[in-house]
């Protein structure tokens, strides 16, 4: 490997495209890097000659307030965008970890799925258009700035979640949503034999919470204290009138499940929610590995318990988050030190994939990460995906080996 410190940080899309074309022509491999917040997802690149930072491509290209649309350069941090939009009563539901560093382009490329997607949709559903730098240096546009557009293939959604293996997203156009007027967070410790019932009650609420989590562990990282069966956090969003009823409904649902006390937070609700999201990819030095998988919501609680039990059999510390509304399980296993974890993580990884074949590694700084089944079982259409990669990036210039099936 050549000096991985060879970093370039182009200041314009055109400059970036020129760098890409030069690398492609000279067979130099590029690692694309935004805010370095989700680099624990996917495999490390099998070779890298140039680290291409998108972080200087920053700022709003167009903010059409009357149309509730917006175009931004890919290196813009999510937090900058969120604070601009919040001032105008708007938001885009990225809900990605560490938004002060995470970039728009990186979050899209990683296909990040946040906990409010059952209500507000995935980031791809707000995406109206993109500009991408292809390996040959073409800057290709797709979509536009209108909210409905069926002119040609939906290239923007294809680039979302492609891990930079088809090209480098340099600009993204979005529709923005109206920010909910009120937000409220519920916190409760779960006594014995309440967890299953609480999860079922939360999922069945007529006024769906914007997010609802069962958490066990993640002490100090996520608000609240564990009871015997962990704790729940639920976020409500909406008008004052709606929140009043939703609060009543939620309290009685939790009460019915046998949970005596609930703490309610109006101030700081949003921040507490963001701490949950941060925890999705928070590592414990080099001594943790975090997995994520996506069962259907009604089965998620049982499967979250099963992987916790498995971790405990391996004498690994298990911290878990269950996104009750989407059925999305995060399991972080850790040990006393990096070597102790390294000694058993590969067998644990095998055992985990026995019961959850699609579990993906989303965060780890442990040296063994590259030898784990980071992407889980390959998708059925892997051959079509490989063909797509060959057609877009025949020299494998972008992020070689980072993606599913060695793409």
């Amino acid at each position: 490997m050549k000096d991985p410190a060879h970093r370039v940080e182009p200041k314009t899309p055109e400059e970036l495209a020129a760098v890409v074309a030069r690398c492609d022509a000279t067979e130099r491999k590029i690692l694309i890097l935004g805010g370095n917040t989700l680099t624990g997802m996917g495999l490390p690149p099998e070779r890298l000659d140039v680290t291409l930072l998108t972080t200087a491509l920053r700022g709003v290209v167009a903010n059409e307030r009357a149309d509730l649309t917006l175009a931004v350069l890919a290196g813009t941090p999510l937090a900058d965008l969120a604070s601009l939009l919040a001032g105008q009563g708007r938001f885009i539901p990225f809900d990605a970890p560490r938004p002060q560093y995470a970039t728009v382009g990186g979050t899209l490329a990683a296909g990040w799925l946040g906990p409010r997607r059952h209500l507000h949709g995935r980031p791809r559903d707000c995406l109206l258009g993109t500009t991408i730098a292809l390996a040959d240096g073409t800057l290709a546009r797709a979509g536009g700035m209108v909210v409905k557009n069926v002119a040609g293939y939906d290239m923007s959604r294809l680039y979302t979640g492609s891990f930079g293996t088809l090209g480098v997203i340099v600009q993204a156009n979005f529709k923005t949503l109206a920010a909910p007027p009120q937000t409220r967070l519920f916190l409760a410790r779960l006594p014995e034999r309440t967890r299953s019932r609480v999860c079922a009650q939360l999922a069945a609420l007529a006024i769906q919470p914007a997010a609802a989590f069962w958490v066990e562990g993640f002490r100090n990282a996520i608000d609240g204290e564990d009871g015997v069966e962990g704790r729940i956090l639920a976020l409500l969003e909406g008008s004052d009138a709606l929140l009043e009823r939703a609060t009543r409904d939620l309290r009685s649902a939790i009460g019915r499940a046998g949970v005596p006390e609930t703490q309610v937070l109006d101030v700081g609700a949003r921040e507490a929610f963001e701490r949950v999201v941060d925890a999705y990819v928070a590592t414990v030095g080099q001594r943790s590995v975090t997995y994520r998988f996506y069962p259907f919501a009604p089965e998620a609680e049982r499967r979250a318990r099963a992987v916790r039990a498995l971790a405990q059999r391996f004498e690994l510390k298990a911290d878990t988050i269950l996104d009750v509304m989407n059925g999305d399980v995060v399991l972080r296993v850790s040990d006393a030190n990096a070597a102790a974890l390294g000694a058993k993580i590969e067998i644990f990884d095998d055992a985990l994939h026995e019961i959850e074949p699609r579990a993906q590694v989303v965060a780890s700084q442990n040296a063994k990460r590259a030898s784990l089944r980071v992407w889980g079982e390959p998708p059925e259409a892997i051959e079509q995906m490989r063909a797509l990669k060959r057609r877009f990036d025949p020299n494998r210039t972008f992020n070689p080996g980072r993606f599913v099936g060695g793409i």
Partner: protein
Amino acid sequence: MLAQRLAGALGSDAVKTSPEDLSVYAFDAYADGAPPAAVVLPKTTADVCAIVKIARECNEPIVARGAGTGLCGGAVPAAGGIVVSFARMNRILELDAPNRRAHVQPGVINFDLSRHVASSGLFYGPDPSSQRISTIGGNIATNAGGPHCLSYGTTVNHVLALEVVDGEGDVFVTSIDDAGYDLTAALVGSEGTLGIVTGAWVRLLDLPEATRVWVAAFDDMESATEAVSAIVAAGMVPTALEIMDAVITQAVEAAFHAGYPTDAAASLLIESAGFEDDMDGCEAAMRTIVTAYGASSWRSARTQAERDALWAGRKGAAGATGRIAPNYYTQDVCVPRSRLPQALRAVAAAAAENRIVVGNVFHAGDGNLHPLLMYDKRDPKAVAAVVETGNAILQSAVDLGGTISGEHGIGSEKREAMTRIYSAGDLATMARVRDVFDPSRSLNPDKIFPRAIQSPDVPPA
């Protein structure tokens, strides 16, 4: 020869070859084309694979077809070949109510799906005006919209997984929950040029607890469109914001007695769905805004029957124009919402210049215009004037930062207009996707891509 081989594989009752049968498949709701050489009606995915393999061996193109309600020639064969009709693959295979999803065959009619799942408290979101006859497969091919995609999004937001037969006759499955590229999203809206959808898992939504429908009347169109922008900008999220002009409401009232004012320059149909607790506040806020923008009246539909009548009128608007002229052409463009006043002025100017009667009925909340240009197709001058008017409207939308199709698709109609919004490089990038799924260009050829880049720029692998 071709028909014999198809009949050999699928049985003779699955193949149609008589000229009178074939002539039916030379049309959609937009275009008259050439009849195909054969029409095949598969019953299974394996049938579709067999059809594609035979077509490849005989070097015949294939066009997949749902109900033929398309508005851009997408399902009309460009030059003979095989039409695959999904009329016999029309079963709802599974309703998974706890996970709010259904597994359907492509020939299932949109409205039938919603009706079927209603008893489980669910419905299917996308509701194109053709929903009583159009199929889920056709809706997927065009990424169909409808009035309610203002809040629910277009078809792509409702497709969870697809079973697809590619241009070589091989079947594959994609899911939005798979790791890897979002092939599902790439396939939705690809108008049958990347694969033939043989099955779909679609997302279902909870039926809302409360639904209210209101009609505000305006003395001028511009105020109505400004009110729409103001409603959206105020952070309200109605489920539909539809405008009809007087030409349309008069035709609709004559046909349906739906309950729209016939003397207003613009009628704004507003629907809000959600929770009862929000509805009074929502109505008050909405009414304040439309009043501030000069609404001359405000009517609340009191009963389900009144709501249904208003919606039936809205969805039947295009058909109702039969009272004005024997034919109509629907243009479909989308502009940034705040540009609606300019876009509508451009529509009026283009129609006036070409002496065409135009009626406007459109998804105002999305900035998605549907001017209906009325004419008599037996009059060649009128046909030419409609083409000219449609073209001018298309260009004005592009000039206003919009797009050449909001929800109907490109098909054969607008393929050459793709260069108005995309560069050759942009289009070549899209064509790379086609190189992967249909390298020989046998799936619905001569659609979407302009002639200049229709051919593969790499030899098939």
